[in-house]
């Protein structure tokens, strides 16, 4: 079972990497706005011609 002396630190390094990645993302503001990016994905590429469109139904 002496493999534990290797495998456990390795697992912890992976955890450490994940935590670093999460903290980096949070600091960069990746979690600030969780709604708009989801909608943005539905739209066409901005390179296409933008035709004025009435997006308002009030």
């Amino acid at each position, binding site marked *: *079972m002496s493999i*534990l*002396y290797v495998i*456990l630190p390795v*697992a*912890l390094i992976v*955890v450490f990497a*994940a*935590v670093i990645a*999460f*903290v980096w993302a*949070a*600091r960069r*503001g990746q*979690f*600030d*706005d*969780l*709604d*708009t990016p989801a*909608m*943005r994905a*539905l*739209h066409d590429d*901005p390179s296409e011609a*933008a035709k*004025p*469109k*009435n*997006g*308002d139904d*009030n």
Partner: protein
Amino acid sequence: MRPTGKGYEEFDHDAFRSLYVTPVKGGLCRTELYLEGLHCSSCVWLVERVPLLLAGVARTELDIRRARALVEWDPATVRLSAIARQLDVLGYAPHPFRGVAAESMRRTEDRAMLTRIGIAGALAGNIMLLALAQYSGWFSGMEAEYERYFRVISLLLTIPVLFGPGWLFFQGALASVRTRRLHIDLPVAIALLAGFTRGAVNTVNGSGPIYFDAVGMLVFLLLSGRFLQNRGQRAAADAAELLGSLAPAAARVVEPDGEHELPAEALLPGMVMSVRAGETFSADGEVTDGRSAVDCSLLTGEPRPEGVTVGSAVYAGTVNLTGALRVTVTRAGELSRLGALLRRMEDSARRRAPVVQLANAIAGWFVAVVLVVAVVTYVYGLRHDPARALDNAIALLVVTCPCALGLATPLAITVSIGRAARRGILIKGGDAIEALNRPGLIFLDKTGTVTEGRVRLVRWEGAEWAKPLVAALERESSHPIAIAVQQAWPAAETHAARDVQQTIGGGIEGMVDGRHVVVGSPAFVARRTSEDDRAYDDCVPDSHSRDDRAPSHPASDVRIDAFAEEGLTPVWVAVDGAVVAHAGFGDPLRTDARASIERLRALGWRVALLSGDHPAVVRTVAHQLGIDVSDAVGSASPEEKLQRVEGARIRGTVLMVGDGVNDAAAIAAATVGVGVHGGAEASMSAADVYLARPGLTPLVELVEGAHRTMLVIRNNILFSIAYNALGATLALLGLLDPLIAAVLMPISSLSVVLTSWRGRTFDAPAAPVAPVAAAAAPPASLGIPRAEPAP
């Protein structure tokens, strides 16, 4: 939303730039704008296409939940006012975002909290895994060498959790000790510290229980609860803030070389403003030229316009209705009457003592009981089993850590705030929910709260054939009475009015279909008809309307009195010199008002009216609503409203419900302030709760929902105390081994989470308040269409 067609010149002004614009790399400028009228994903598409529509705009990025657009542009190529006009043309009227500093603080705070939760979650999860291995080793045996290894690693993982993310609880506990105000953080910190210290000592000694899994999980769960709570409250605060950015930001100032738009912040006394019909005054001042009617509802709460002429005083925030005015500024910004009122509002909001949360109240005796029981356990253990006495006492401290108690309130409140928001009830703080559970006195503002807050045609007595004539004439005016007529008879008319003349404070007259039509106050119409010297019979086209002919003057007076008694403004209609109809205009009661008030009474609240309107009208409304006349206060100035609310607070809970700036100070001073749908921005930022649906039904839902939320909280607290009592008993008897502790703790937290999610707090009203149209608004609503106007 339609384009407003404004010029937005103030966006280019130096004062605006220094307030809201920051320079960024590459010579670009950046600002944030609040946008009105956003609702769906195509709005994101449209707003983010602005760089393609307008050269010089580098980037527009929308945050749709907060209704905020980040704009970056090149000031050498394009002006901000052009960008604003473009957004306006697309249908999203832009407003400067005034809370940049607060927002960036909030963002930092949110990110820091997320970081804490991320670290605590990852490490606590791994500590749990290690603990699982140790517990199974406990059953099937484990080599001492590996057990020690696992323990040391658990300790190494617990240290960063406790002194990183968990440091927040020690700070809270320290603050609680320093201010001598008990807070739930205190027992949490004691348990964390006791568990960790004992665990560390036992790790070094190589025997006895360690509590690292419990400590790590505690930190993670409590942090998550706290984060959720903050988020829910923020969503409501954001919505109120959006409305806060809608105040007029610009004024048109007359200077020798013409008129310029200036930001309202840059106005100085002595400047002359030009204010067109339909515009809002940006400062207090004195009229130097022109005549008009002014809608003072912002300050008085009443929709009836007041006439102004040269020499009259006008106030910031009120709306110029009919004619163009020149106004010399006397007081601007914070010195204006509006500014002073808002300052008083902020003062009373600051002075208000916070509501003591149930969980914190319990935390007090909780600490005492737990410490006493821990000492008893230790002393009892010394006599019977000295070797395990200390371990038993510490096990007790850990197992009784108020994890469930700490989660009980925030979680239940968060879930409720979220559900309430979906029903159009925006609650800014958990305090409001707790306070609403002690029934007391409800002050309702009259206009706009129990009534619709708009002038409407309520009564028409007389000739039907005159209606198209009146409608044709009133189409030419923007007076509130005219608007009420247009709303009452929206059908397209073929008639056209000519030679229309309006007399401010009197009425309107003109030729329709070749007939002379006069509509106005009884005195005005009497004056006009007596001037006309026409043949009597000519003016009555058919036998039916012969009966509708003008009554003699005494009868007219009787009718004026009758209208006044119902709170209606009398308007007489004369055609070709004879009075043919009597119209009563008023502000009809909301259809759900009476039923809602009865429901509130049944829940134990005393309901009172507090209005700036004429006492006679307030009494009439009170009578119609079944409110005791002694509880109906009229002619109350904003200052008197504040005084009454403060006076009533000494005796108990006070709920102030209102919609105007004139209610804002009172709303801020009340135990719970409620702003209603369609209200002024100030009343919203002052309010603890904002009702985004019209009517009083949401108010009833709020009170009932708060009640049900409190039930969930009480149940949660009972649950967690029961678990703690069980744990304490086991620990006292020395039967609590670490495995049982490890199982017991998550179960108690989990049960609290479940009951919070399951609780039907704001899902649907238990007893829906049925609109009682006929009973609630007696003659008020007969035959008048009540369609909600389009926003």
